[in-house]
Protein backbone atom coordinates (compact mmCIF):
# COMPACT_ATOMS: atom_id res chain seq x y z
CA UNK A 1 0.00 0.00 0.00
CA UNK A 2 2.74 2.43 0.90
CA UNK A 3 4.65 1.43 -2.23
CA UNK A 4 1.58 2.04 -4.29
CA UNK A 5 0.96 5.54 -2.95
CA UNK A 6 4.65 6.42 -3.25
CA UNK A 7 4.50 5.36 -6.84
CA UNK A 8 1.39 7.44 -7.40
CA UNK A 9 3.05 10.46 -5.86
CA UNK A 10 6.13 10.07 -8.06
CA UNK A 11 4.03 9.78 -11.19
CA UNK A 12 1.95 12.80 -10.24
CA UNK A 13 5.11 14.72 -9.44
CA UNK A 14 6.61 13.90 -12.83
CA UNK A 15 3.43 14.95 -14.61
CA UNK A 16 3.26 18.22 -12.68
CA UNK A 17 6.94 18.90 -13.40
CA UNK A 18 6.43 18.23 -17.09
CA UNK A 19 3.41 20.50 -17.19
CA UNK A 20 5.36 23.23 -15.41
CA UNK A 21 8.18 23.02 -17.95
CA UNK A 22 5.66 23.10 -20.79
CA UNK A 23 3.98 26.17 -19.34
CA UNK A 24 7.26 27.99 -18.74
CA UNK A 25 8.33 27.33 -22.32
CA UNK A 26 5.04 28.05 -24.02
CA UNK A 27 4.22 31.41 -22.43
CA UNK A 28 7.22 33.26 -23.85
CA UNK A 29 7.12 31.25 -27.08
CA UNK A 30 3.50 32.06 -27.85
CA UNK A 31 3.96 35.65 -26.79
CA UNK A 32 7.00 35.93 -29.02
CA UNK A 33 5.20 34.52 -32.02
CA UNK A 34 2.05 36.61 -31.79
CA UNK A 35 3.67 39.86 -30.71
CA UNK A 36 3.72 41.34 -34.25
CA UNK A 37 -0.08 41.40 -34.11
CA UNK A 38 0.05 44.03 -31.39
CA UNK A 39 2.83 46.21 -32.71
CA UNK A 40 2.09 49.88 -33.22
CA UNK A 41 2.15 50.96 -36.86
CA UNK A 42 4.51 53.66 -38.00
CA UNK A 43 2.36 55.68 -40.36
CA UNK A 44 3.75 58.38 -42.61
CA UNK A 45 2.70 60.28 -45.71
CA UNK A 46 4.55 59.97 -49.02
CA UNK A 47 4.33 62.29 -52.00
CA UNK A 48 3.13 60.61 -55.21
CA UNK A 49 2.65 63.28 -57.86
CA UNK A 50 0.72 66.41 -58.74
CA UNK A 51 -2.65 65.55 -60.23
CA UNK A 52 -2.08 67.82 -63.22
CA UNK A 53 0.61 65.48 -64.51
CA UNK A 54 -1.81 62.51 -64.67
CA UNK A 55 -3.58 62.08 -68.04
CA UNK A 56 -7.37 61.85 -67.97
CA UNK A 57 -9.12 58.45 -68.17
CA UNK A 58 -5.80 56.61 -68.27
CA UNK A 59 -4.68 54.63 -65.22
CA UNK A 60 -1.09 55.76 -64.68
CA UNK A 61 1.35 53.80 -62.52
CA UNK A 62 3.75 55.62 -60.17
CA UNK A 63 6.51 53.86 -58.27
CA UNK A 64 6.68 55.25 -54.76
CA UNK A 65 9.14 54.41 -51.98
CA UNK A 66 6.92 53.53 -49.05
CA UNK A 67 8.32 53.16 -45.51
CA UNK A 68 7.54 49.80 -43.89
CA UNK A 69 4.88 50.37 -41.24
CA UNK A 70 5.51 47.24 -39.15
CA UNK A 71 8.37 45.04 -37.99
CA UNK A 72 11.99 46.04 -37.57
CA UNK A 73 12.84 49.36 -39.19
CA UNK A 74 14.20 48.89 -42.68
CA UNK A 75 14.68 50.69 -45.93
CA UNK A 76 11.53 51.91 -47.71
CA UNK A 77 10.06 49.49 -50.25
CA UNK A 78 9.06 50.47 -53.80
CA UNK A 79 5.35 50.06 -54.39
CA UNK A 80 3.01 50.84 -57.27
CA UNK A 81 0.33 53.50 -57.05
CA UNK A 82 -2.16 53.60 -59.92
CA UNK A 83 -3.71 57.06 -60.21
CA UNK A 84 -6.92 57.29 -62.26
CA UNK A 85 -8.36 60.68 -63.09
CA UNK A 86 -11.89 60.47 -64.45
CA UNK A 87 -13.47 63.16 -66.60
CA UNK A 88 -16.06 63.59 -63.89
CA UNK A 89 -13.27 64.88 -61.64
CA UNK A 90 -13.15 61.81 -59.40
CA UNK A 91 -9.69 60.49 -58.55
CA UNK A 92 -8.95 56.87 -57.73
CA UNK A 93 -5.69 55.98 -56.02
CA UNK A 94 -5.38 52.23 -56.40
CA UNK A 95 -2.77 49.75 -55.31
CA UNK A 96 -1.81 47.06 -57.82
CA UNK A 97 -2.32 44.27 -55.28
CA UNK A 98 -4.87 41.76 -56.57
CA UNK A 99 -7.55 41.02 -53.99
CA UNK A 100 -7.34 37.33 -54.91
CA UNK A 101 -3.75 36.21 -54.24
CA UNK A 102 -2.03 39.60 -54.03
CA UNK A 103 -0.20 39.29 -57.34
CA UNK A 104 0.84 42.40 -59.26
CA UNK A 105 -2.05 43.75 -61.34
CA UNK A 106 -1.38 45.93 -64.38
CA UNK A 107 -3.53 48.03 -66.72
CA UNK A 108 -4.08 46.46 -70.13
CA UNK A 109 -5.74 48.87 -72.59
CA UNK A 110 -6.52 45.99 -74.99
CA UNK A 111 -8.88 44.13 -72.63
CA UNK A 112 -12.63 44.54 -72.46
CA UNK A 113 -14.35 47.49 -74.13
CA UNK A 114 -11.80 50.18 -73.24
CA UNK A 115 -9.18 48.53 -71.09
CA UNK A 116 -9.15 46.59 -67.82
CA UNK A 117 -6.75 45.83 -65.01
CA UNK A 118 -5.45 42.29 -65.47
CA UNK A 119 -3.91 40.08 -62.84
CA UNK A 120 -1.54 37.72 -64.66
CA UNK A 121 -1.66 35.06 -61.95
CA UNK A 122 -5.23 33.82 -62.31
CA UNK A 123 -6.73 36.17 -64.87
CA UNK A 124 -8.54 38.49 -62.46
CA UNK A 125 -10.08 41.53 -64.19
CA UNK A 126 -10.94 44.96 -62.76
CA UNK A 127 -12.52 47.95 -64.46
CA UNK A 128 -11.03 51.43 -64.55
CA UNK A 129 -12.34 52.23 -61.05
CA UNK A 130 -10.77 49.09 -59.59
CA UNK A 131 -14.05 47.17 -59.38
CA UNK A 132 -13.60 43.42 -59.83
CA UNK A 133 -15.43 42.50 -63.05
CA UNK A 134 -14.12 39.05 -63.94
CA UNK A 135 -12.11 36.06 -62.86
CA UNK A 136 -11.52 34.95 -59.30
CA UNK A 137 -10.91 38.23 -57.36
CA UNK A 138 -13.46 38.44 -54.53
CA UNK A 139 -13.31 42.22 -54.02
CA UNK A 140 -12.16 45.45 -55.74
CA UNK A 141 -8.54 46.61 -55.90
CA UNK A 142 -7.59 48.03 -52.48
CA UNK A 143 -7.21 51.83 -52.68
CA UNK A 144 -4.34 53.55 -50.90
CA UNK A 145 -5.22 55.96 -48.08
CA UNK A 146 -4.58 59.28 -49.73
CA UNK A 147 -5.08 63.03 -49.43
CA UNK A 148 -5.03 65.84 -51.96
CA UNK A 149 -3.81 69.31 -51.03
CA UNK A 150 -3.45 72.48 -53.08
CA UNK A 151 0.09 73.81 -53.41
CA UNK A 152 0.93 77.56 -53.43
CA UNK A 153 1.28 77.49 -57.21
CA UNK A 154 -2.26 76.18 -57.57
CA UNK A 155 -1.41 72.59 -58.57
CA UNK A 156 -2.88 69.78 -56.53
CA UNK A 157 -0.53 67.43 -54.68
CA UNK A 158 -1.42 63.76 -54.17
CA UNK A 159 0.03 61.97 -51.16
CA UNK A 160 -0.53 58.45 -49.84
CA UNK A 161 -0.17 56.95 -46.41
CA UNK A 162 1.83 53.73 -46.14
CA UNK A 163 -1.36 51.73 -45.68
CA UNK A 164 -4.32 50.50 -47.73
CA UNK A 165 -7.73 51.99 -47.01
CA UNK A 166 -9.13 48.48 -46.55
CA UNK A 167 -7.85 45.07 -45.60
CA UNK A 168 -7.05 42.66 -48.41
Amino acid at each position, binding site marked *: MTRYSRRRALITGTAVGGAAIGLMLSIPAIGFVISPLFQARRNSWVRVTTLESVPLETPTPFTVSVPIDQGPPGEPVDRVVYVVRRRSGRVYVLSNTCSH*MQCNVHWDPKLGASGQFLCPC*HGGLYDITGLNVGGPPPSPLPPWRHRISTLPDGSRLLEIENQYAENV
Partner: protein
Amino acid sequence: MAVLRFLARPLSRRLRSGYGWVDERAGTTSMLHKGLYEAVPKRGGWAYALGSATLALILLQLFTGIFLLLDYVPSFNQAFDSLHYLETSDRFGSWVRGMHLWGAYVLILVIGLHMLRTFLSASYKRPRELNWVSGAVLFFLTLGLAITGAMLPMDNAGYWTAVVVTNIPHYIPFIGDGIRSLWRGSDFVGPVTLTRTFGIHIWVLPFLLFALIGGHLMLLRRHGEFGSWVNYQTDTDDPEREITERILKAEPPYPTKRTGRRWAAPRDTVDFFPDQIFKDIVISVVLIAVIFVMGYIAGAPLDERADPATLTYVPTPEWFYLPLDQMLLLYPSNYLILVGGLGLVGIGATLLTLLPFLDRSHARAPLRRPEVIIPGLLLALAVVMLAVLGANRLFNL
Protein backbone atom coordinates in the same frame (compact mmCIF):
# COMPACT_ATOMS: atom_id res chain seq x y z
CA MET B 1 52.34 -0.98 -23.36
CA ALA B 2 49.08 -2.32 -24.78
CA VAL B 3 49.23 0.33 -27.46
CA LEU B 4 52.74 -0.71 -28.53
CA ARG B 5 51.74 -4.37 -28.68
CA PHE B 6 48.75 -3.38 -30.85
CA LEU B 7 50.93 -1.40 -33.25
CA ALA B 8 53.41 -4.25 -33.62
CA ARG B 9 50.81 -6.53 -35.25
CA PRO B 10 50.24 -6.76 -39.05
CA LEU B 11 47.69 -4.32 -40.47
CA SER B 12 44.87 -6.80 -41.19
CA ARG B 13 45.06 -8.21 -37.71
CA ARG B 14 45.27 -4.73 -36.30
CA LEU B 15 42.05 -3.73 -38.10
CA ARG B 16 40.27 -6.89 -37.05
CA SER B 17 41.19 -6.59 -33.41
CA GLY B 18 40.42 -2.86 -33.50
CA TYR B 19 36.94 -3.65 -34.81
CA GLY B 20 36.62 -6.37 -32.20
CA TRP B 21 37.38 -3.83 -29.50
CA VAL B 22 34.65 -1.45 -30.81
CA ASP B 23 32.19 -4.29 -31.38
CA GLU B 24 32.64 -5.57 -27.82
CA ARG B 25 31.67 -2.17 -26.48
CA ALA B 26 29.15 -0.88 -29.04
CA GLY B 27 27.51 -4.08 -30.28
CA THR B 28 28.05 -3.10 -33.91
CA THR B 29 27.83 -6.57 -35.41
CA SER B 30 24.57 -7.52 -33.80
CA MET B 31 23.18 -4.15 -34.76
CA LEU B 32 24.22 -4.67 -38.38
CA HIS B 33 22.79 -8.17 -38.35
CA LYS B 34 19.53 -6.87 -37.04
CA GLY B 35 19.46 -4.15 -39.65
CA LEU B 36 20.61 -6.07 -42.69
CA TYR B 37 19.34 -9.63 -42.42
CA GLU B 38 15.62 -9.27 -42.66
CA ALA B 39 13.13 -10.98 -44.90
CA VAL B 40 11.72 -8.98 -47.83
CA PRO B 41 9.18 -10.30 -50.38
CA LYS B 42 11.03 -11.65 -53.38
CA ARG B 43 8.83 -10.30 -56.18
CA GLY B 44 8.52 -6.56 -56.79
CA GLY B 45 11.81 -5.50 -55.19
CA TRP B 46 12.37 -2.82 -57.82
CA ALA B 47 9.12 -1.16 -56.79
CA TYR B 48 10.05 -1.22 -53.08
CA ALA B 49 13.28 0.56 -53.98
CA LEU B 50 11.23 3.74 -54.41
CA GLY B 51 10.94 3.99 -50.63
CA SER B 52 14.68 3.80 -49.98
CA ALA B 53 15.27 6.16 -52.93
CA THR B 54 13.05 8.67 -51.13
CA LEU B 55 15.20 8.34 -48.03
CA ALA B 56 18.39 8.69 -50.06
CA LEU B 57 17.08 11.83 -51.73
CA ILE B 58 16.01 13.38 -48.43
CA LEU B 59 19.53 12.79 -47.08
CA LEU B 60 20.91 14.33 -50.25
CA GLN B 61 18.75 17.42 -49.60
CA LEU B 62 20.12 17.61 -46.08
CA PHE B 63 23.68 17.33 -47.39
CA THR B 64 23.39 19.94 -50.17
CA GLY B 65 21.31 22.14 -47.87
CA ILE B 66 24.10 22.31 -45.30
CA PHE B 67 26.51 23.56 -47.96
CA LEU B 68 24.06 26.22 -49.15
CA LEU B 69 23.72 27.33 -45.54
CA LEU B 70 27.44 28.12 -45.49
CA ASP B 71 27.00 30.85 -48.11
CA TYR B 72 23.42 32.02 -47.83
CA VAL B 73 22.56 35.14 -45.79
CA PRO B 74 18.95 35.02 -44.55
CA SER B 75 18.34 38.74 -44.77
CA PHE B 76 15.75 40.54 -46.87
CA ASN B 77 18.35 42.82 -48.41
CA GLN B 78 21.29 40.43 -48.64
CA ALA B 79 19.75 37.07 -49.51
CA PHE B 80 19.72 37.82 -53.22
CA ASP B 81 23.28 39.17 -53.17
CA SER B 82 24.62 36.13 -51.36
CA LEU B 83 23.04 33.76 -53.87
CA HIS B 84 24.07 35.96 -56.77
CA TYR B 85 27.65 35.67 -55.52
CA LEU B 86 27.23 31.92 -55.18
CA GLU B 87 25.86 31.62 -58.71
CA THR B 88 28.33 33.87 -60.49
CA SER B 89 31.61 33.56 -58.56
CA ASP B 90 31.56 29.97 -57.45
CA ARG B 91 31.15 27.17 -59.99
CA PHE B 92 30.65 24.54 -57.33
CA GLY B 93 28.27 26.79 -55.45
CA SER B 94 25.87 26.98 -58.38
CA TRP B 95 26.28 23.23 -58.87
CA VAL B 96 25.37 22.49 -55.26
CA ARG B 97 22.39 24.83 -55.51
CA GLY B 98 21.35 23.15 -58.74
CA MET B 99 21.53 19.76 -57.06
CA HIS B 100 19.43 21.03 -54.15
CA LEU B 101 16.71 22.19 -56.56
CA TRP B 102 16.77 19.13 -58.81
CA GLY B 103 16.94 16.96 -55.72
CA ALA B 104 13.67 18.53 -54.60
CA TYR B 105 12.08 17.99 -58.03
CA VAL B 106 13.09 14.34 -58.22
CA LEU B 107 12.19 13.79 -54.58
CA ILE B 108 8.62 14.98 -55.07
CA LEU B 109 8.23 12.86 -58.17
CA VAL B 110 9.62 9.77 -56.40
CA ILE B 111 7.44 10.29 -53.32
CA GLY B 112 4.45 10.50 -55.67
CA LEU B 113 5.42 7.22 -57.34
CA HIS B 114 6.10 5.60 -53.96
CA MET B 115 2.61 6.62 -52.80
CA LEU B 116 1.03 5.41 -56.01
CA ARG B 117 2.74 2.03 -55.64
CA THR B 118 1.53 1.72 -52.05
CA PHE B 119 -1.95 2.75 -53.10
CA LEU B 120 -2.22 0.28 -55.97
CA SER B 121 -0.87 -2.64 -53.92
CA ALA B 122 -3.05 -1.82 -50.88
CA SER B 123 0.00 -2.07 -48.62
CA TYR B 124 -1.69 0.34 -46.23
CA LYS B 125 -4.17 -2.18 -44.87
CA ARG B 126 -4.11 -3.62 -41.39
CA PRO B 127 -1.68 -3.65 -39.61
CA ARG B 128 0.20 -1.04 -41.68
CA GLU B 129 -2.28 1.84 -41.40
CA LEU B 130 0.17 4.06 -39.53
CA ASN B 131 2.86 3.49 -42.17
CA TRP B 132 0.51 5.14 -44.65
CA VAL B 133 -0.57 7.95 -42.31
CA SER B 134 3.01 8.85 -41.43
CA GLY B 135 4.00 8.61 -45.09
CA ALA B 136 1.19 10.95 -46.14
CA VAL B 137 2.22 13.48 -43.49
CA LEU B 138 5.83 13.15 -44.69
CA PHE B 139 4.61 13.97 -48.21
CA PHE B 140 2.90 17.14 -46.98
CA LEU B 141 6.00 18.12 -45.00
CA THR B 142 8.10 17.71 -48.15
CA LEU B 143 5.71 19.93 -50.09
CA GLY B 144 6.00 22.47 -47.28
CA LEU B 145 9.78 22.32 -47.46
CA ALA B 146 9.66 22.78 -51.22
CA ILE B 147 7.44 25.85 -51.05
CA THR B 148 9.32 27.51 -48.20
CA GLY B 149 12.60 26.79 -50.00
CA ALA B 150 11.27 28.49 -53.13
CA MET B 151 10.83 31.76 -51.18
CA LEU B 152 14.34 32.01 -49.78
CA PRO B 153 16.34 33.41 -52.76
CA MET B 154 14.33 36.67 -52.62
CA ASP B 155 14.62 37.09 -56.34
CA ASN B 156 11.39 37.97 -58.15
CA ALA B 157 10.28 34.34 -58.22
CA GLY B 158 10.95 33.89 -54.50
CA TYR B 159 9.41 37.19 -53.48
CA TRP B 160 6.18 36.66 -55.40
CA THR B 161 5.94 33.05 -54.25
CA ALA B 162 6.19 34.41 -50.71
CA VAL B 163 3.45 36.98 -51.41
CA VAL B 164 1.03 34.45 -52.87
CA VAL B 165 1.73 31.60 -50.46
CA THR B 166 1.70 33.60 -47.25
CA ASN B 167 -1.55 35.19 -48.42
CA ILE B 168 -3.40 31.86 -48.67
CA PRO B 169 -4.11 31.46 -44.90
CA HIS B 170 -5.91 34.81 -45.00
CA TYR B 171 -8.98 33.08 -46.45
CA ILE B 172 -9.47 31.06 -43.26
CA PRO B 173 -12.29 32.75 -41.34
CA PHE B 174 -11.57 34.60 -38.07
CA ILE B 175 -7.93 33.57 -37.59
CA GLY B 176 -6.75 33.79 -41.21
CA ASP B 177 -5.58 37.41 -41.12
CA GLY B 178 -3.74 36.67 -37.88
CA ILE B 179 -1.90 33.69 -39.36
CA ARG B 180 -0.88 35.74 -42.37
CA SER B 181 0.41 38.56 -40.15
CA LEU B 182 2.33 36.10 -37.99
CA TRP B 183 4.01 34.50 -40.96
CA ARG B 184 4.76 37.79 -42.65
CA GLY B 185 5.57 39.61 -39.42
CA SER B 186 3.60 42.48 -40.95
CA ASP B 187 0.75 43.04 -43.39
CA PHE B 188 3.20 42.88 -46.26
CA VAL B 189 6.01 40.52 -47.11
CA GLY B 190 9.08 42.03 -45.55
CA PRO B 191 12.27 41.31 -43.58
CA VAL B 192 10.53 39.28 -40.88
CA THR B 193 8.80 37.09 -43.50
CA LEU B 194 12.13 35.90 -44.83
CA THR B 195 13.60 35.21 -41.40
CA ARG B 196 10.56 33.21 -40.33
CA THR B 197 10.34 31.26 -43.57
CA PHE B 198 14.05 30.51 -43.29
CA GLY B 199 13.56 29.21 -39.75
CA ILE B 200 10.67 27.04 -40.89
CA HIS B 201 12.65 25.70 -43.84
CA ILE B 202 15.86 24.78 -42.07
CA TRP B 203 14.64 23.87 -38.58
CA VAL B 204 10.93 23.39 -37.99
CA LEU B 205 10.01 21.26 -41.00
CA PRO B 206 13.24 19.19 -41.16
CA PHE B 207 12.95 18.45 -37.46
CA LEU B 208 9.42 17.11 -37.91
CA LEU B 209 10.47 15.37 -41.10
CA PHE B 210 13.33 13.40 -39.59
CA ALA B 211 11.32 12.53 -36.48
CA LEU B 212 8.58 11.10 -38.66
CA ILE B 213 11.03 9.30 -40.94
CA GLY B 214 12.32 7.51 -37.84
CA GLY B 215 8.78 6.45 -37.00
CA HIS B 216 8.05 5.45 -40.59
CA LEU B 217 11.13 3.21 -40.76
CA MET B 218 10.44 1.72 -37.34
CA LEU B 219 6.95 0.77 -38.48
CA LEU B 220 8.31 -0.67 -41.72
CA ARG B 221 10.70 -2.86 -39.77
CA ARG B 222 7.99 -3.92 -37.36
CA HIS B 223 5.53 -5.17 -39.99
CA GLY B 224 7.83 -5.89 -42.92
CA GLU B 225 7.33 -4.90 -46.51
CA PHE B 226 3.88 -5.96 -47.73
CA GLY B 227 4.71 -5.87 -51.40
CA SER B 228 1.91 -6.99 -53.64
CA TRP B 229 -0.98 -9.44 -53.47
CA VAL B 230 0.94 -11.53 -55.99
CA ASN B 231 3.38 -12.48 -53.22
CA TYR B 232 0.56 -14.12 -51.27
CA GLN B 233 -1.04 -16.24 -54.00
CA THR B 234 -1.34 -19.95 -53.38
CA ASP B 235 -0.43 -22.56 -55.98
CA THR B 236 -1.46 -25.91 -54.49
CA ASP B 237 -4.92 -27.44 -54.15
CA ASP B 238 -4.78 -27.00 -50.39
CA PRO B 239 -4.28 -23.28 -49.79
CA GLU B 240 -4.85 -23.57 -46.04
CA ARG B 241 -1.93 -25.98 -45.63
CA GLU B 242 0.25 -23.94 -47.92
CA ILE B 243 -0.34 -20.78 -45.88
CA THR B 244 0.25 -22.65 -42.60
CA GLU B 245 3.60 -23.91 -43.89
CA ARG B 246 4.53 -20.48 -45.09
CA ILE B 247 3.82 -18.98 -41.68
CA LEU B 248 5.74 -21.75 -39.91
CA LYS B 249 8.95 -21.17 -41.83
CA ALA B 250 8.56 -17.38 -42.08
CA GLU B 251 11.51 -15.23 -41.05
CA PRO B 252 11.20 -12.01 -39.09
CA PRO B 253 9.54 -9.57 -39.45
CA TYR B 254 7.03 -12.09 -40.79
CA PRO B 255 4.56 -13.45 -39.88
CA THR B 256 2.91 -10.14 -39.32
CA LYS B 257 0.56 -10.10 -36.38
CA ARG B 258 -3.00 -8.86 -36.51
CA THR B 259 -3.62 -9.42 -40.13
CA GLY B 260 -5.62 -11.93 -42.12
CA ARG B 261 -3.92 -15.36 -42.18
CA ARG B 262 -3.55 -15.12 -45.93
CA TRP B 263 -1.53 -11.91 -45.67
CA ALA B 264 0.61 -12.95 -42.69
CA ALA B 265 3.70 -14.06 -44.66
CA PRO B 266 4.75 -13.77 -48.31
CA ARG B 267 5.41 -16.84 -50.43
CA ASP B 268 9.10 -16.27 -51.15
CA THR B 269 11.43 -13.90 -49.38
CA VAL B 270 15.01 -12.76 -49.82
CA ASP B 271 17.38 -11.09 -47.38
CA PHE B 272 17.38 -7.34 -47.27
CA PHE B 273 21.17 -7.53 -47.56
CA PRO B 274 22.37 -7.93 -50.23
CA ASP B 275 19.35 -8.77 -52.46
CA GLN B 276 17.13 -5.78 -51.77
CA ILE B 277 19.82 -3.27 -50.93
CA PHE B 278 21.42 -3.87 -54.33
CA LYS B 279 18.21 -2.85 -56.09
CA ASP B 280 17.88 0.11 -53.73
CA ILE B 281 21.35 1.33 -54.53
CA VAL B 282 20.88 0.93 -58.29
CA ILE B 283 17.74 3.09 -58.24
CA SER B 284 19.37 5.66 -55.94
CA VAL B 285 22.49 5.84 -58.11
CA VAL B 286 20.41 6.49 -61.22
CA LEU B 287 18.33 9.19 -59.54
CA ILE B 288 21.29 10.91 -57.91
CA ALA B 289 23.18 10.78 -61.21
CA VAL B 290 20.25 12.60 -62.83
CA ILE B 291 20.39 15.21 -60.07
CA PHE B 292 24.20 15.44 -60.35
CA VAL B 293 24.02 16.08 -64.09
CA MET B 294 20.95 18.31 -64.12
CA GLY B 295 22.32 20.31 -61.20
CA TYR B 296 25.34 21.14 -63.35
CA ILE B 297 23.68 21.58 -66.76
CA ALA B 298 20.40 23.22 -65.84
CA GLY B 299 21.28 24.43 -62.35
CA ALA B 300 18.83 26.47 -60.35
CA PRO B 301 17.47 29.68 -61.88
CA LEU B 302 17.99 33.00 -60.14
CA ASP B 303 15.75 35.82 -61.38
CA GLU B 304 16.26 39.54 -61.04
CA ARG B 305 16.42 41.00 -57.55
CA ALA B 306 12.94 41.07 -55.98
CA ASP B 307 10.96 44.08 -57.20
CA PRO B 308 7.71 44.65 -55.28
CA ALA B 309 6.82 47.43 -57.74
CA THR B 310 7.14 45.38 -60.94
CA LEU B 311 4.36 45.65 -63.48
CA THR B 312 5.74 43.11 -65.91
CA TYR B 313 6.87 40.14 -63.82
CA VAL B 314 4.38 37.27 -63.93
CA PRO B 315 4.43 35.18 -60.76
CA THR B 316 4.44 31.51 -61.70
CA PRO B 317 4.26 28.57 -59.32
CA GLU B 318 6.69 25.65 -59.29
CA TRP B 319 5.44 22.80 -61.47
CA PHE B 320 4.36 20.65 -58.55
CA TYR B 321 1.99 23.39 -57.37
CA LEU B 322 0.42 23.86 -60.81
CA PRO B 323 -2.66 21.71 -60.07
CA LEU B 324 -3.39 23.71 -56.91
CA ASP B 325 -2.76 26.97 -58.76
CA GLN B 326 -5.13 25.96 -61.53
CA MET B 327 -7.76 25.16 -58.89
CA LEU B 328 -7.38 28.69 -57.49
CA LEU B 329 -8.26 30.00 -60.93
CA LEU B 330 -11.57 28.19 -60.86
CA TYR B 331 -12.98 29.62 -57.65
CA PRO B 332 -14.13 33.22 -57.57
CA SER B 333 -15.57 35.04 -54.51
CA ASN B 334 -14.43 34.85 -50.91
CA TYR B 335 -16.23 31.81 -49.63
CA LEU B 336 -15.71 29.76 -52.80
CA ILE B 337 -11.98 30.27 -52.45
CA LEU B 338 -12.39 29.11 -48.88
CA VAL B 339 -14.60 26.15 -49.74
CA GLY B 340 -13.13 25.23 -53.10
CA GLY B 341 -9.53 26.33 -52.87
CA LEU B 342 -8.84 25.47 -49.24
CA GLY B 343 -11.76 23.28 -48.16
CA LEU B 344 -11.68 20.81 -51.04
CA VAL B 345 -7.91 20.55 -50.94
CA GLY B 346 -8.06 20.13 -47.17
CA ILE B 347 -10.73 17.45 -47.47
CA GLY B 348 -8.72 15.76 -50.21
CA ALA B 349 -5.57 15.80 -48.09
CA THR B 350 -7.48 14.46 -45.10
CA LEU B 351 -9.08 11.68 -47.14
CA LEU B 352 -5.67 10.80 -48.55
CA THR B 353 -4.16 10.64 -45.08
CA LEU B 354 -7.04 8.59 -43.69
CA LEU B 355 -7.22 6.23 -46.66
CA PRO B 356 -6.54 3.08 -44.57
CA PHE B 357 -9.59 3.84 -42.45
CA LEU B 358 -11.81 4.41 -45.50
CA ASP B 359 -10.80 1.31 -47.45
CA ARG B 360 -11.31 -1.46 -44.91
CA SER B 361 -12.24 -4.37 -47.13
CA HIS B 362 -9.97 -7.43 -47.07
CA ALA B 363 -9.31 -7.34 -50.81
CA ARG B 364 -5.79 -6.38 -51.90
CA ALA B 365 -5.71 -7.03 -55.66
CA PRO B 366 -6.46 -3.79 -57.58
CA LEU B 367 -9.18 -5.38 -59.72
CA ARG B 368 -10.94 -6.63 -56.59
CA ARG B 369 -11.36 -3.16 -55.05
CA PRO B 370 -12.49 -0.88 -57.88
CA GLU B 371 -14.37 1.38 -55.45
CA VAL B 372 -10.99 2.63 -54.21
CA ILE B 373 -8.80 2.27 -57.28
CA ILE B 374 -11.10 4.01 -59.77
CA PRO B 375 -11.81 7.18 -57.73
CA GLY B 376 -8.10 7.23 -56.82
CA LEU B 377 -7.01 7.02 -60.44
CA LEU B 378 -9.60 9.64 -61.44
CA LEU B 379 -8.13 11.92 -58.78
CA ALA B 380 -4.62 11.27 -60.10
CA LEU B 381 -5.89 12.00 -63.62
CA ALA B 382 -7.48 15.23 -62.38
CA VAL B 383 -4.17 16.30 -60.81
CA VAL B 384 -2.24 15.64 -64.04
CA MET B 385 -4.96 17.33 -66.08
CA LEU B 386 -4.96 20.46 -63.93
CA ALA B 387 -1.17 20.57 -64.17
CA VAL B 388 -1.35 20.44 -67.98
CA LEU B 389 -4.00 23.15 -68.08
CA GLY B 390 -2.03 25.30 -65.64
CA ALA B 391 1.20 24.92 -67.63
CA ASN B 392 -0.66 25.83 -70.81
CA ARG B 393 -2.13 28.94 -69.21
CA LEU B 394 1.25 30.16 -68.01
CA PHE B 395 2.89 29.39 -71.37
CA ASN B 396 0.35 31.62 -73.11
CA LEU B 397 0.39 34.58 -70.76
